[in-house]
């Protein structure tokens, strides 16, 4: 269908409005915490703070909107979370003035920060507490770029909603809470009082969100009364009706289902700046019954449903990811907040889940071409080819969406982690590529782990050559390793050492959140927090996973392969000469560098020599992390995804034995090093499939295609077959960037002409022109698979 005038205006508004840092939330939180000094438990205080926000934040209904509600006072006005991390005036200055991903800061916002917010929170935020609890060895590793820490300024809240809100109103949630309160056993359960406080906090949050929706109804009523255009007046009256009905009661129709979810989304992302990705999950399956009912009764048409979904999409795009604190001018990040709507997949009974709404969503994705929400198709062996072909036609337009997931594998991954079959089939992927049991799991990404940096430190016997500081353990001088395996084992020991540091830190940080920053609103939505009376951060969810994301697998493989091949097998290079060349960043040693680059068996070519090394590294990383206990009665698992961290990690890692120069990006996800794959996509897929994806919580494989390769429908079929084969080999995820290098170079030179050029970065799409120069270069360098 063509995009309606209304949608087109809202979309333009969303695209053209510049992101603004809004001090509204920070100011309200400061007001609340100043005022409320009565003794109360922390969960209840957090709930009351949430209630205060919902009661006092500005209500925004834009002209023409069908789905209402904003996180800030208006679209693209982005709230801050000073209780977690408080922006300094210089942070505000940088955010306002930096070239990439700016947030404009008004004089009023700056003044609010200077006069009220900073004096109250500086030194008292959770981030301050976290850093004061971290050990010196943790800080040394963190500063050296061995790992990052997600929770230092964004709350763990990585989860996705299931279907519960579509048949259950908030009033019923309140009944559940009350019956849980009634079941508390104060005689035998020493934690009964803690549970009572948590449940009371949830109850306050239930009322707060209902109140928030009623305030929208009130606002819509006022607008309707003043409205002179009869059509808009009728729409506003419908909005009044809807906002009075949901979320208090179960949705009666398609429109109410979307509005209900949106209120919940605003609640979750206002309570805390959950990192990240909260989204409705399997939207096509959740909406299908409402769609079917509407179509059958004649109350809804496909076009009406499409327009509502378009409005819903724009809502996501109106919410840039919260700006970070402690930023440097160079650090920019992204506006995207990683909501990933799943399309297709399977039903809880294992049958094919693709329905009419799946195709409708794909139409919306294609028409809207927005950064947010991100989208994926979930492909099971039962999914029809037609469905993948439809998605491939969108991919071909070079917009980087949707990405493609192996639904059958996700079920296997979740089962291995201990989920029931039913919960596994209701799960999916979120964020970049992480799997989870939707609506029932707290699965937190806690930081990226820089494997190549660990090898660099191993090659220097525990010392970081960039700073000369000793931050690792002594695993021996590499010149003295008689065999390759000695080196490999030294690397494994070093890696375990740093994983220990990371996990020790996580165990403290997770408890800090559990104790000081509970999330009662999020908790009431995630099973079984109500039933157990425990918070999402405190192990209340049915499943609790802590992830550490490995970065640089391709680089690691080529590094190890180069060392084995040239130093131990062929003896064309000595360890001493290699270390000298690395120390000099290969300056004046072009031949050594080219030998390492061009005469090494490298990952991505379906070459067992290299791929077996990759498998060993995978195994070592898996063994170092998987199965460790977290603080929530759950376990650690791994995934292999980089977001943009391979660029940062590369910047802190010196020259490496794979011929990479100091500071250059590492490989991303499980993709080969940029340019190392010389045998085309089938070889890349074969190499990548040699690791055991089942034992991960997600892997990310990026493929870059030129548009010429996907010109005809037959070409698209080949793409579908390529994906099907990768999934048959148990690959987890694949995404395609379809833009030729010439286009990207042109965009670099004339960003003004390519403002809308969206590319796949790593698990998400972003505007090419918003990316850092280094990342732009790296995307251009990724092998462009051309046709033969």
């Amino acid at each position, binding site marked *: 269908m063509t995009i309606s005038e209304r949608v087109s205006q809202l979309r333009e508004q969303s695209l053209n409005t510049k992101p603004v840092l809004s001090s509204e939330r920070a100011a309200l939180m400061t007001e609340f915490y100043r005022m409320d000094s009565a003794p109360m438990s922390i969960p209840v205080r957090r709930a009351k703070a949430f209630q205060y926000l919902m009661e006092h934040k500005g209500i925004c209904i834009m002209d023409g909107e069908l789905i209402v509600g904003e996180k800030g006072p208006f679209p693209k006005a982005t709230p801050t979370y000073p209780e977690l991390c408080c922006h300094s005036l210089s942070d505000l200055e940088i955010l306002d003035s930096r070239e990439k991903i700016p947030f404009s800061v008004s004089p009023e916002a700056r003044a609010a920060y200077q006069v009220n917010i900073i004096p109250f929170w500086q030194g008292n935020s959770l981030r301050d507490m976290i850093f004061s609890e971290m050990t010196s060895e943790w800080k040394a590793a963190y500063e050296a770029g061995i790992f990052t820490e997600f929770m230092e300024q964004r709350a763990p809240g990585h989860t996705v909603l299931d279907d519960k809100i579509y048949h259950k109103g908030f009033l019923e949630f309140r009944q559940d809470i009350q019956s849980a309160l009634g079941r508390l056993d104060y005689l035998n359960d020493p934690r009964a009082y803690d549970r009572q406080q948590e449940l009371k906090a949830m109850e306050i949050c239930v009322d707060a969100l209902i109140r928030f929706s009623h305030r929208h109804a009130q606002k819509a009523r006022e607008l309707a009364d003043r409205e002179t255009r009869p059509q808009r007046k009728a729409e506003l009256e419908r909005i009044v009706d809807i906002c009075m009905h949901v979320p208090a009661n179960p949705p009666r129709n398609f429109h109410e289902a979307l509005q209900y979810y949106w209120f919940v989304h605003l609640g979750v992302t206002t309570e805390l700046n959950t990192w990240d990705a909260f989204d409705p999950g399997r939207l096509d399956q959740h909406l299908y019954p409402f769609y079917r009912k509407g179509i059958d009764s004649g109350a809804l048409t496909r076009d009406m449903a499409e327009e509502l979904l378009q409005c819903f999409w724009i809502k996501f795009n109106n919410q840039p990811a919260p700006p970070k604190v402690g930023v440097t001018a160079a650090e920019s990040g992204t506006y995207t907040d990683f909501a990933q709507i799943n399309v297709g997949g399977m039903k809880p009974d294992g049958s094919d889940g693709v329905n009419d709404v799946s195709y409708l969503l794909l139409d919306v994705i294609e028409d809207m071409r927005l950064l947010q929400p991100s989208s994926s198709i979930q492909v099971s062996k039962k999914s029809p080819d037609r469905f993948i072909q439809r998605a491939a036609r969108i991919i071909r337009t070079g917009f980087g969406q949707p990405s493609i997931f192996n639904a059958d594998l996700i079920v296997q991954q979740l089962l291995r982690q201990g989920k029931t079959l039913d919960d596994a089939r209701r799960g999916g992927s979120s964020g970049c590529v992480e799997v989870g049991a939707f609506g029932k799991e707290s699965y937190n990404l806690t930081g990226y782990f820089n494997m190549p940096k660990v090898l660099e430190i191993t090659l220097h016997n525990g010392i970081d050559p960039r700073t000369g500081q000793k931050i690792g353990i002594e695993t021996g001088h590499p010149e003295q390793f008689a065999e390759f395996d000695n080196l490999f084992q030294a690397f494994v020991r070093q890696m375990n050492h740093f994983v220990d540091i990371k996990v020790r830190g996580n165990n403290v940080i997770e408890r800090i959140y559990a104790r000081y920053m509970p999330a009662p609103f999020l908790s009431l939505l995630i099973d079984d927090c109500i039933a157990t009376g425990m918070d999402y951060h405190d192990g209340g969810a049915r499943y609790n996973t802590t992830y550490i994301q490995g970065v640089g697998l391709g680089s690691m493989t080529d590094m190890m392969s180069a060392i084995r091949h040239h130093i131990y097998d062929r003896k064309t290079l000595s360890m001493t000469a290699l270390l000298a060349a690395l120390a000099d960043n290969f300056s004046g040693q072009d031949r050594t560098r080219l030998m390492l680059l061009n005469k090494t068996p490298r990952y991505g070519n379906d070459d067992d020599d290299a791929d077996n090394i990759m498998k060993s590294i995978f195994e070592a990383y898996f063994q170092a992390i998987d199965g460790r206990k977290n603080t929530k009665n759950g376990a650690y698992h791994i995934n292999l995804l980089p977001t943009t961290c391979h660029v940062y990690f590369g910047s802190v890692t010196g020259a490496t034995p794979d011929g990479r120069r100091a500071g250059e990006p590492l490989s991303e996800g499980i993709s080969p090093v940029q340019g190392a794959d010389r045998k085309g996509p089938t070889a890349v897929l074969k190499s990548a499939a040699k690791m055991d994806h089942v034992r991960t919580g997600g892997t990310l494989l990026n493929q870059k295609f030129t548009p010429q390769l996907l010109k005809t429908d037959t070409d698209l079929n080949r793409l579908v*077959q390529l994906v099907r084969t990768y999934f048959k080999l148990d690959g987890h995820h694949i995404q395609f960037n379809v833009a030729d290098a010439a286009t990207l170079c042109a965009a670099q030179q004339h960003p003004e002409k390519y403002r809308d050029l969206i590319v796949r970065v790593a698990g998400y799409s972003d505007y090419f022109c918003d990316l850092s120069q280094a990342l732009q270069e790296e995307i251009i360098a990724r092998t462009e698979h051309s046709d033969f």
Partner: protein
Amino acid sequence: MIFDIKHFSIHDGPGIRTTVFLKGCPLSCWWCHNPESQRFFREKLYTVGRCIGCMECLAACPTHALSETEIGLFTDPEKCLRCGACSDVCLAEACEMAGRELTVNQVMDEIEKDRAFFDESGGGATFSGGEPLIQPDFLLALLKACKDCRIHTVVDTSGFSAWNVLDSIRHHVDIFLFDLKLMDDEKHRLFTGVSNRRILRNLQALSSGGHRVRIRIPIIPGITDDDDNVVAIGVFAAGLPTAPPIDLLPYHHFAAAKYERLARAYPFQDMRPPMADVMNRLAERLCSMGLAVHLERS
């Protein structure tokens, strides 16, 4: 001897294929887009952009055939033995050799790697060239090996071969991609160096034998793109026992760089690909003769 193996070939027969390029060709078409395929011996390719100027190759060359010039390396064709010593020491991959001797098993290992993709897509192996029929024993062994492993086979040929060679392989080939360039024999001799009589006879014989054939016409502006030529091919095709489908392949310009790397003159420096309307018109002419036509994209 082969000069390349390409994975994920998607325009050389059905499905996702692995194409094995055999080296050496009895034709010498002016427009050949794989010039490194033509000769029967190893050839040196030099890519000046990759050369770092280390000149290790000068020392490695046993006949001192190499010299350094302002525009990179010069290889004296009179002295060069094509031994590959220069490429062996070239870490930058500026000097490369086109052509390597592989055993049937080595080629099969490479083909087998893509088995999962063949199974999913109905693909298989394509043998191209050069002219694959020019290495009949090797080709036959490869085809038989494929059939032993139940791999679908395509042979992409100029058709210029003794019938007994075609006869020996034809029962191991699922589809022939059969190039027809020019019906006028005089022109054929001029632009390809050989007569087309044997080619047409072989095509006739394959069709009579009930083999699946697709005719491929390279559309070279000013040479093969006139209506007369294309219609004449159409008439011939329509007269075969089973009229084969016809693929129209537009000339493309990608080969220029390869000629440069081989230090050979490219006669078509200024040639442009055919216009879309020409391609469409030719396709329509063939369609109107009741033939199935497929237009390759440029």
